[in-house]
C-alpha cells in the first residue's frame, strides 16, 4: 500500500491469525482488531501446545526430567539441559569439575548459535527472504552434525546429567568446531550483505514494533529483546554461573528496541558466541568430565558390567529412592538462554522426585508484550514483529 493513502475506514474488522499459520512458527494465535490496515487491538492466545511439563516434573526423577527439558525449547535444547541441571546441582550444593563446566559452556554457546541461526532463517523467511533461510540452514546443519557426534542426537540432545555430562567430547570435536566458527562469520557476512542495508528489509523492520526500555522491563522482557532496547543486561555477566566469569565477551545492545535492532543484536551475539567458543576451546581443561561421586553420576558402563561395586552404584542410582536426592528446600536458578532468562524453580521434599518444578520461560513474557508492539501499527508488521521475538511455542506453553 502506498504511503499517505487513506488507510482507515472507520469500520472494525476482526482477523484471526493462527494458531495454524506459517508465520506463527507453530501454534501461536493472535486475534487482531483492524481498522483498515491499522491494528487497533491485538490479543495473543497461548496454550495450544500445553504439554504439562511442570506436572510431569513431579513424577519423573531428577535425571529423567532432562529429557523433557530438550523438548521445551527445541531450538536450543542444550541450553535448557544446562539450565536445568545447574538448578538441581545448586540445590544439591555440588559443583562440577572445570572440564565439565567448559564443555557445557561450549555446548550452550553452540546451541545459542543454532537458535539464532534458525531464528534468522525463519524471521527472514516470514518477510519473504527465502535465500536467507537456506543459507542459515546450511550452517545449522553443520551444527546438527556436531551435536549428533557429541550427544547422539541432532535435536533432542539430553546431553547433561546432574553432576556432569553423559560422555566426553569426541576426538576431532575441536577441529570440527574450529572449522565451524571460522566459517560462520563469513556466512553471516553473506546475510549482512543480503539484509542489513537492504531497502526492503530496513523499511519493514526499522521503527517497527518498538518498545522503550522502561516498558520492556515492566513487561519482563529479557535476552536479546531487552538488550535491543538499550539495557545492557545479560545473566552471563550479571550473575556469572558455571565458568562464564572466565570468558571475555561483549554484550551487544541496541538503541530503539525495534525489529531491526533485535536483528542486529542477535547477529552480533552470534559473533560473541563464536568468541566464547574459541576461548573455551583454547583453555579447555583436562580432567574428569563429571563429578566423581558414585551417589550422583552413573558409573561407566564397563564398570557396571564388569565390577560388582559398579553394578551396585548403578543399581542404587536408578532405583527409586536411592538416586539423586536434594535436601528439603527450594531454589531458583536462572541462566541466559538464547531467548532470555530461563529459570528453574525447584522445590524438593527430600525424595528422588521434585516436589514442584516451575519453569520460567522467556517466550511467555515476549508473547505477552506483543500487543504493546503491534497496536497502532500496520497489519503487515505483525509478521515482522512476531518473527523478531522468536516466541517458541514449546517453551511458551510448556
Amino acid at each position, binding site marked *: 500500500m502506498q504511503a499517505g493513502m487513506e488507510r482507515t475506514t472507520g469500520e472494525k474488522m476482526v482477523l484471526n491469525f493462527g*494458531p*495454524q*499459520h*506459517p508465520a506463527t512458527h*507453530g*501454534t501461536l494465535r493472535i486475534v487482531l482488531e483492524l481498522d483498515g490496515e491499522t491494528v487497533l487491538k491485538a490479543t495473543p492466545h497461548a*496454550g*495450544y*501446545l*500445553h*504439554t*504439562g511439563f511442570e*506436572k*510431569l516434573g513431579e513424577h519423573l526423577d531428577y535425571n529423567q526430567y532432562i*529429557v*523433557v527439558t*530438550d*523438548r521445551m525449547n*527445541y*531450538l536450543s535444547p542444550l541450553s535448557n539441559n544446562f539450565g536445568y541441571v545447574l538448578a538441581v546441582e545448586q540445590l544439591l550444593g555440588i559443583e562440577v569439575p572445570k572440564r565439565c563446566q567448559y564443555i557445557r559452556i561450549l555446548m550452550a554457546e553452540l546451541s545459542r548459535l543454532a537458535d539464532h541461526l*534458525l531464528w534468522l*532463517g*525463519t524471521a527472514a523467511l516470514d518477510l519473504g527472504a527465502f535465500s536467507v*533461510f*537456506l*543459507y542459515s*540452514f*546450511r550452517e*545449522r*546443519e553443520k551444527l*546438527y552434525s556436531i551435536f549428533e557426534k557429541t550427544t547422539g542426537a*541432532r*535435536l*533432542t540432545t539430553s546431553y547433561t546429567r546432574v553432576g556432569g555430562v553423559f560422555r566426553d567430547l569426541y576426538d576431532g570435536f575441536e577441529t570440527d568446531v574450529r572449522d565451524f566458527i571460522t566459517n560462520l562469520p563469513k556466512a553471516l557476512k553473506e546475510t549482512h550483505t543480503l539484509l542489513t542495508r537492504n531497502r526492503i528489509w530496513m523499511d519493514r523492520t526499522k521503527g517497527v514494533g518498538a518498545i522503550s526500555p522502561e516498558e520492556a522491563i515492566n513487561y519482563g522482557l529479557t535476552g536479546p529483546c531487552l538488550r535491543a532496547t538499550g539495557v545492557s543486561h545479560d545473566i552471563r555477566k550479571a550473575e556469572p554461573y558455571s565458568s562464564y566469569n572466565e570468558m571475555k565477551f561483549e554484550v551487544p545492545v541496541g538503541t530503539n528496541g525495534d525489529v531491526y535492532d533485535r536483528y542486529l543484536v542477535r547477529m552480533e551475539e552470534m559473533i560473541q558466541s563464536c568468541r566464547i567458543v574459541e576461548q573455551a576451546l583454547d583453555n579447555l581443561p583436562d580432567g574428569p568430565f563429571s563429578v566423581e561421586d558414585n551417589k550422583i553420576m552413573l558409573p561407566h558402563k564397563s564398570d557396571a558390567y564388569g565390577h560388582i561395586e559398579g553394578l551396585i552404584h548403578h543399581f542404587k542410582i536408578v532405583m527409586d529412592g536411592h538416586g539423586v536426592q536434594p535436601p528439603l528446600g527450594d531454589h531458583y536458578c536462572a541462566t541466559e538462554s538464547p531467548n532470555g532468562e530461563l529459570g528453574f524453580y525447584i522445590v524438593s521434599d527430600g525424595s528422588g522426585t521434585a516436589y514442584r518444578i516451575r519453569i520460567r520461560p522467556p517466550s511467555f513474557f515476549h508473547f505477552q508484550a506483543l500487543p504493546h508492539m503491534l497496536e497502532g501499527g500496520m497489519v503487515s508488521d505483525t509478521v515482522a514483529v512476531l518473527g523478531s521475538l522468536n516466541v517458541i*511455542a*514449546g517453551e511458551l*506453553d510448556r
Partner: protein
Amino acid sequence: MGLDFGHRAEPTDGNILTTTIDKVVNWGRRNSLWPMPFGTACCAIEMMATLASKYDLSRFGSEAIRFSPRQSDLLIVSGRISIKMMPVLKRIYDQMPDPKWVISMGACASCGGVFDTYTLIQGVDQFLPVDVYIPGCPPRPEDLIDAVMQVQRQIDKGALPKGSEVA
C-alpha cells in the same frame, strides 16, 4: 521420458501411449504431493530441516508447501497435539479436499510420546485416519522423506487413503 505406467502401457507405433486414466491421474498425484505441514513442536523443526538446503524435499515433488488446507492433499502432523489444538487439527483435516493422505510424524503425534499427561492427545489416530506413521523423537529428515515415498508407493498401487475408506 522415464514414464512408467505399468504393464498396461503399450507404446504403439510412434508416439501414442495407451494407459488407463487412473494410472495417469495417480502418476500425477504421486509426483506432486502438496503437503500441508501441521507442525507444532520439535518435530516441526526437523520438518523444516527436511525442506531446507541439505535434505531438500523438493527432489520428491513435495516442495510446494501450502499452508492452506484447501490446496493440499498431504497432511503432515508433526509435533504434540494438545486437547486445545485437536479441534483445530480436525477442522484443518476436514477442510482438505479428497483424496487426502495423513502422515503422523514422531512419537508424540503417533502415540503421545514421552508425554503421558492430562493435556496431550495420545495419538492423533484416535481422531484422524493416519496413513503413514513415522517413529522417532524426532524422526530424522530421512525418515520423513521415506514416509513421503511410502505415500507415493501407496498411490502408485492405486490404494485409496485411509480417510476415504472411513467416509
